[in-house]
């Protein structure tokens, strides 16, 4: 039932997106504790002219009772990602992006609520931040969903639970660009993005990546703190490099345009 309702929500969301309505100003960062519903009103595709990438939805993973990975010295993933998110937000804003965070305090929005923050925007990308339990300390990896053929029903709508499918090629491009920047700054990190079927990314209708930093098992918390500026800088440069590749079409039903 849950799945069916999620699909229907997606259909409703997409149906709204196809209906011309008044243009909506992109949301600014919401206060804590006000998660957006998956059925939040989307932007009208037919109203505004083509828009480029100008919004980054930043997702510090976990939160609330979900502490995420726990390591030595009481390191908690849900707390550390907030510190990384603050730095990434500042670096992105310095590049001229508007940043929306899925959480700013110790809340734990659902996967769908987090995805909805990106799905309700036009010209947005989604970046989820994680700290791993494993991996060589001081390395960072970017993950994207595996390539999948987009599923549309006869009306051209995309089911909510497969919202990422039409964006996987763009997600790979964004992931590779961000990972290339990370690999330059963190020795031992892979040169390109890796594929993994990540639940958070599956329902996100935008180019979407998950960045995972190793790890909560560092000997000292300061080892993680030292990585903050480099991770923030790399993500900001990677997203900036991706900006020309992403243009949202003006007309309803027009496929996304990927510039060479």
């Amino acid at each position, binding site marked *: 039932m849950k*799945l069916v309702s999620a699909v229907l929500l997606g259909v409703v969301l997409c149906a709204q997106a196809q209906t011309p309505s008044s243009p909506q100003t992109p949301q600014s960062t919401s206060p804590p504790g006000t998660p957006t519903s998956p059925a939040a009103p989307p932007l009208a595709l037919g109203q505004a002219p083509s828009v480029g990438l100008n919004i980054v939805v930043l997702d510090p993973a976990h939160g609330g009772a979900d502490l*995420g990975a726990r390591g030595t010295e009481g390191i908690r993933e849900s707390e550390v990602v907030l510190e990384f998110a603050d730095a990434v937000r500042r670096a992105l804003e310095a590049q001229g992006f508007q940043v929306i965070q899925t959480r700013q305090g110790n809340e734990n929005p659902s996967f769908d609520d987090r995805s909805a923050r990106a799905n309700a925007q036009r010209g947005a990308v989604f970046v989820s931040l994680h700290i791993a339990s*494993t991996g060589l300390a001081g390395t960072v990896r970017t993950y994207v969903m595996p390539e999948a053929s987009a599923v549309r029903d006869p009306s051209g709508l995309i089911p909510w639970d*497969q919202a990422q499918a039409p964006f996987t090629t763009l997600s790979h491009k964004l992931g590779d660009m961000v990972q290339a920047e990370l690999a330059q700054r963190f020795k031992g990190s892979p040169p390109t993005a890796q594929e993994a079927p990540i639940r958070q990314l599956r329902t996100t209708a935008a180019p979407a990546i998950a960045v*995972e930093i190793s790890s909560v098992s560092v000997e000292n918390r300061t080892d993680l703190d030292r990585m903050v500026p480099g991770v923030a800088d790399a993500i900001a440069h990677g997203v900036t490099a991706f900006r020309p590749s992403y243009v949202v079409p003006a007309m309803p039903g027009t496929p996304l345009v990927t510039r060479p």
Partner: protein
Amino acid sequence: MNPKWRLWLGGVLAVAVIAAALYFPALRRQVYRAKTITEKTAEQARRELLPIAPATSGEPMVKAKMFWGSTDGDATLVPVTVELPLSNDPTLRAKEILNTLLAGPVDPEARTLPPDAALLAFYILPNGTAVADFSEALANSIPSGIQSEQLAVDSITRTLEANVPQVQRLKILIHGQEADTLAGHLDLTQTFQVNMNGAATQAPTRSGLSVLTAPVQKAYEKVKRATKRQ
């Protein structure tokens, strides 16, 4: 009582006191040891209650390839060849293989799955989709993270691919139910590709069981009923 018997009684009592004094430190050590024994987890107790998989000791020893983690800490999988008495029946064979994978390698550092996780049920459907039902410990005890969760699933799928060619796709259930994620990251609502030859016959499904084929739904219900009975 005459003095002779009194003397005997006193002697016996004295020997008993000396014996007790000598035994007391050993008794203390035993009590201390009993206190330090780790309490059995619910999962361990559950594993003992579960029916034991059919013995295949009569089967010929076969070289099986298991994919455990590298001990270098680089989160990669390394094939390890072990000799096992494996059945020719693909379902029994897969159960034996997965139980060996769960039992873990000689070096605990190379583990990819939690030591207290158990395989509760395993079915292979005619279309090559396998359904593996694991205990909750698989989700609860695995280190949280994209990398560690993917390593766990990869070790299962690659080990099945190397040893049970009949399995083309794998659906993972946790305690008889479809789970959203393994431990907060990896999506378990989809099936995982095991044998690439099966890709042409049916693409991996990315959504829940409600859109899976009818046989998968039947197997899911069967696993659920079996779990309830236990």
